[in-house]
């Protein structure tokens, strides 16, 4: 473990520098028009081009009253949003002063960050402890192929800075936990929850309530996305809606459930929109509301959530939570979206990939059952395996199929091996099927680490997904 680390990358703030110089010039020009006789001014403006405009406008009104605080460059850059009724110069100036923290530099965090930067949010912080993997790139669109293996928070910062160098970017390469969350969050006005796990969502919610920050929460899986804003404008917090965490076995991550990149992309953009609206003083459309996006059906549905709950253990009338707790313990799951490795079977019921390879080379008769879903089997499979998806291993039709296969094995020591993606469901399958096949005098074992271990330990050309 590298331990907690925080790296700050601050781009040289040329824009600010320019603005300072500009306003200094303005001030000098104003002084000039006040204290220097007009004839002399005309002479000066002829010899010094930069004072020309000041000299000509000075006769009408002080330029400070004519132009907004925005620089000429800002006006050009943000012109299309400056002319928006309801947003305007005031909105832009508020945006410039605002700071937004994006927690999670993934499928939600990337689009959120880039749109916030494009819009001219003054300070953007990004928290992430992961490094870029190839399997991220289909949805985490600010990371690059050559950035695989580098910290995600850093590659977001690079992308943001190259789009808008005037944005102050801060990379927090830390795993946000109870002992550091408040320190990071307290530095920002608005927090975007772009995380991928339950423990982090409760942690962010609690910290935002304790520190009185609005929390813009997004999530996505498969073809669906959800968006809501917590702890804002008298609305509910995450605990008002979800007083208890879901059982860990009911939580699906993107790695196991899959996700189409555009889906978190859509939700991440909407998170940026809400952050911009809140920062610009326009309020939010999702306090006490939940947006349900179904990408497969092309539908957006906005539903009304319960109001802030008086009985809420965190933001209610008699809160029992007054400081951050242990969220891993509370949720029964770690603050990552990594799949945990289970140890359900005794060692004698397990085979390593190397042992299985040897067994194949010895042409030892056996049956190999791949319990992954057909979509995953279609990506890659071991030769001579039969597919019985884990969800169907108890299905009487499938059990009968397996019994038939086993009866065709012609040796006495009938061996059946189960393989899955990472070695968890293969163990579960052994446990589920042992009683159903007990009469066949058969040895059921699982292959440790599944297809992924096979790719890492035996056949490095084998794909990993």
């Amino acid at each position, binding site marked *: 473990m590298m331990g907690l680390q925080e790296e700050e990358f601050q781009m040289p703030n040329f824009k600010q520098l320019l603005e300072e110089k500009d306003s200094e010039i303005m001030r000098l020009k104003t002084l000039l028009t006040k204290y220097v006789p007009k004839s002399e001014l005309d002479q000066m403006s002829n010899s010094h081009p930069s004072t020309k405009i000041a000299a000509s406008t000075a006769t009408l009104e002080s330029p400070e009253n004519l132009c907004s605080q925005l620089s000429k460059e800002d006006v050009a850059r943000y012109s299309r949003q400056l002319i928006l009724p309801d947003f305007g110069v005031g909105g832009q100036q508020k945006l410039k002063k605002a700071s937004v923290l994006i927690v*999670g530099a*993934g*499928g*939600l*965090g990337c689009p959120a960050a880039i749109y916030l930067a494009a819009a001219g949010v003054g300070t953007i912080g990004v928290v992430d402890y992961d490094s870029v993997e190839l399997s991220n790139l289909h949805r985490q669109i600010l990371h690059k192929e050559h950035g695989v293996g580098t910290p995600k928070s850093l590659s977001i910062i690079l992308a943001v800075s190259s789009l808008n160098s005037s944005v102050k970017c801060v990379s927090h390469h830390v795993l946000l936990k109870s002992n550091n969350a408040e320190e990071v969050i307290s530095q920002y006005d608005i927090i975007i929850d*772009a*995380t*991928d*796990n*339950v423990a982090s*969502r409760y942690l962010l919610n609690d910290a935002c309530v304790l520190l009185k920050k609005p929390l813009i929460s*997004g*999530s*996505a*899986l*498969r073809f*669906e996305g*959800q968006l809501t804003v917590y702890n804002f404008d008298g609305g509910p917090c995450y605990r008002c*809606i*979800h*007083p*208890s*965490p*879901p*059982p860990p*076995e*009911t*939580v*699906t*991550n*993107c790695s*196991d*459930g*899959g*996700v189409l990149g555009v889906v*978190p992309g859509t939700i991440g953009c909407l998170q940026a929109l809400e952050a911009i609206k809140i920062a610009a003083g326009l309020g939010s459309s999702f306090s006490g509301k*939940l947006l*349900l996006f*179904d990408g497969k059906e092309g539908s957006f*549905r*906005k*539903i*009304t*959530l*319960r*109001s802030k709950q008086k009985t809420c253990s965190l933001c209610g009338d008699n809160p029992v939570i007054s400081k951050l707790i242990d969220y891993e313990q509370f949720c029964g799951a770690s603050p990552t*979206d990594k799949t945990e490795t289970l140890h359900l079977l005794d060692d004698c019921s397990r085979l390593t990939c190397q042992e299985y390879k040897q067994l194949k080379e010895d042409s030892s008769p056996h049956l190999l059952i791949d*319990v*992954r*879903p057909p*979509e*995953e089997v279609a990506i890659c499979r071991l030769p001579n395996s039969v597919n019985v*998806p*884990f*969800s*169907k291993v108890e299905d009487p039709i499938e059990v009968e199929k397996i019994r038939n296969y086993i009866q065709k094995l012609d040796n006495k020591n009938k061996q059946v091996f189960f393989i*899955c*993606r990472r070695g*968890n*469901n293969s163990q579960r399958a052994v446990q589920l099927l042992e009683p159903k096949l007990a009469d066949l005098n058969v040895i059921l074992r699982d292959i440790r680490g599944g297809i992924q271990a096979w790719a890492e330990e035996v056949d490095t050309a084998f794909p990993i997904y």
Partner: protein
Amino acid sequence: MEITPGIESMANNAAPYVGMSTTVSFNGKSGNISSGGAELLFNNKKKFDVMLPSSDKPWTIKNLLKWIKDNLLEERPELFIQKDSVRPGILVLVNDADWELLGALEYEVQPNDRIMFISTLHGG
């Protein structure tokens, strides 16, 4: 009672997510229950048009959940129901509003109600 057919089995090893949109009908009048997000639990089916049988007891959501457990869920009901209610992480909506606003378990389902079970997502 009518239930739209099309029930397949649970899709894969990933945890089922709940979201179903079902249409409920009463006494021959068409109603609406809808499953928006629980399709893996409900065999990949998003929408059920159901006609609830006549009953002496009012069709509260509590009773409806029991009925769904007995009639629509084929396997692993614990992933949907815990004690008498839905498990944590599932949001119940009645006509696009959080059921808590309407009395939660005690709400009496009305003809043409659209009831959705939404599984909260956590990925990103």
